[in-house]
């Protein structure tokens, strides 16, 4: 797993959804950890795309559950 990408996701998610950094771990489920729904995840994805200057189609999120899954989807596009 790309550690730099994960740390970026961790920081952004923590700030966006007011969750403590130490609660965001690679294996944790995004929805339950951040207490958000799929619309909020898409909004976070846009922020991440802008940060990394990439574009990720919505359908690539379909199998994403954990922060590690999201890290891998983004890393694949870098």
């Amino acid at each position, binding site marked *: 797993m790309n550690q730099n990408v994960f740390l970026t996701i961790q920081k952004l998610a923590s700030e966006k959804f007011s969750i403590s950094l130490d609660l965001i771990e690679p294996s944790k*489920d995004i*929805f*339950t950890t951040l207490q958000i*729904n*799929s*619309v909020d995840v*898409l*909004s976070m*994805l*846009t922020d991440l795309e802008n940060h990394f200057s990439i*574009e990720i*189609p*919505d*359908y*690539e999120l*379909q*199998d994403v*559950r954990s922060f590690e899954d999201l890290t891998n989807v983004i890393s694949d596009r870098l």
Partner: protein
Amino acid sequence: MIISYTSLGEAFHHSLLAKTDHIGLLEVNRNQLTKKLSYQDIFDQAVHTAKHLQHHHFKDGAHCGIIMSNQSLWNTSAIGVFFAGGVLVPLDYKLGPEEHIRLILHADLTMLIVEYPIWHRLMKSADFEKLSNIVVFVTEVPEGKDIKHALHLESAASNFSFVMKPRQPEDIATIVYSSGTFGRPKGCMLTHANYLHQAQALAQLFPVGKEHTYFSFIPTNHAIDFMCGFFLPIMHGSKTIHQRTLRPEFIASTISEFRVTHMALVPMLLKNLETKLKNQLSSLSFFSKLFFRIMLFINQTLTRSRPCYKLSRVLLFPIHKKFGNHLQYIFVGGAYTDPVMAKFFYDIGFSVAVGYGLTEAGTVITVNDLKPFRHDTVGKPLSITQLKIQNPNDAQIGEIIAKGPTVMKGYYKDDELTSQTIIDGWLQTGDLGYIDKGHLIFKGRRKNMIVTSGGKNIYPEDIEHYFQSLPFDDYCVLAGSFIWPEQTQHRDELFLVYYNEKKTIFNYAKAIEEINQLLPEYKRISYALNFTKEFPKTATLKIKRPVLAENIAQSEIVEMIKL
């Protein structure tokens, strides 16, 4: 008159060729317009699909599935199936691959049209080999990607022949599955006549024309979008726009830039919108808020008997500007709609037409005609639909039953369930309500099925079987709205209620959380609820869920753990 046609294929054929220069479909990806199709283009693409189907020996009345996110190819492919004389089986693109395969096989598909990302997931499924006998057309395949035995829909078909296949009004047009696939698949067989009558009735209530643009946001396999975003626009010369991403910021810009006049939403999305608007309104300065309240009062007064969007967009210009200043109608359905929320949108000048319906009856059984707007009801029956309340109690609340030309033919391959659901032509909805001055007041779903505010139907057995291995003595899944129907808190949350008679020492919360990882978001358990008495049951040992829910709501000894 729409009902003068004999089939959807004939209706599309005639309407597309009558207005070839009209723009029918727009497709946007983020901020870029990527497709602009005239009615002639739509016709040509539909014929292209029909040619492919017929070239591969697609028979009259054969079943062809479509699995795609909202896009112009969905619409043109579906019309192609109708041109080729087929039965369309539109599947929800958000289901998992195993559920897709199960429905594909149940529906006896001979052909399937599917977009590449979904086909890619199907190819990775352990059940993929079960699709080997189905002719599959995949769309927008990235260069160099292996699609196994499937074919490219976009490949040339100009040398193929095409014969328009006539269908009759009582022939099956579609087989539409309701959500929830484990247990009994419920494939509603809807005829061409069902759709034509439904379309005719809705067109009389909500006329549309060339100047209107519908934003297709709900999946087109859903009854509301199929009618409002796919069939009706083409019948009336208007256009439909698709946005290929569901990111909120791009949705908003699309509505504004392309002057959307109509859209359909499920209650959850409307709720998101309401929250954003209210947050923006609360951050206004004192004088801005005062001005807004004055304009709101004037708008409420002047639109009390019926909507007047031209007036509303002037009085409440800052809000309407955010929606492109052209939005007139928001159709809402698919799940329970908060009346207060519906009233909020009506008061700020958007005509929110709340309706009630089942897939088994086409799109709607009742809909608000806004003459005047009643936020507390789900509207009046369509002119072609009879509505009754069966076995009413003292409060006149009973089961809603409906009869008319939009009621389905039956469930595919399930005569037993059909005979239980349609009795002497009356559709037994399984829902509760009562009639007030001609309007239906909806009280709730009587069956176990859970409907989220996002319009998702959830069957408890879909979820319960995942927890079979846990050491409960008894358990079931209930929705918050089922336990506390009068409250909005916990409404969409799922509770795994269990009984542990043997007092087995076990970390249920942790085990349930782990199993949650296997479930899609909308099916996940939010609370583990330890019910400390035996579950109430029938003589045949079925759990009496309403009684259990009542016990939970009234009990003070229940232990509840948030997951």
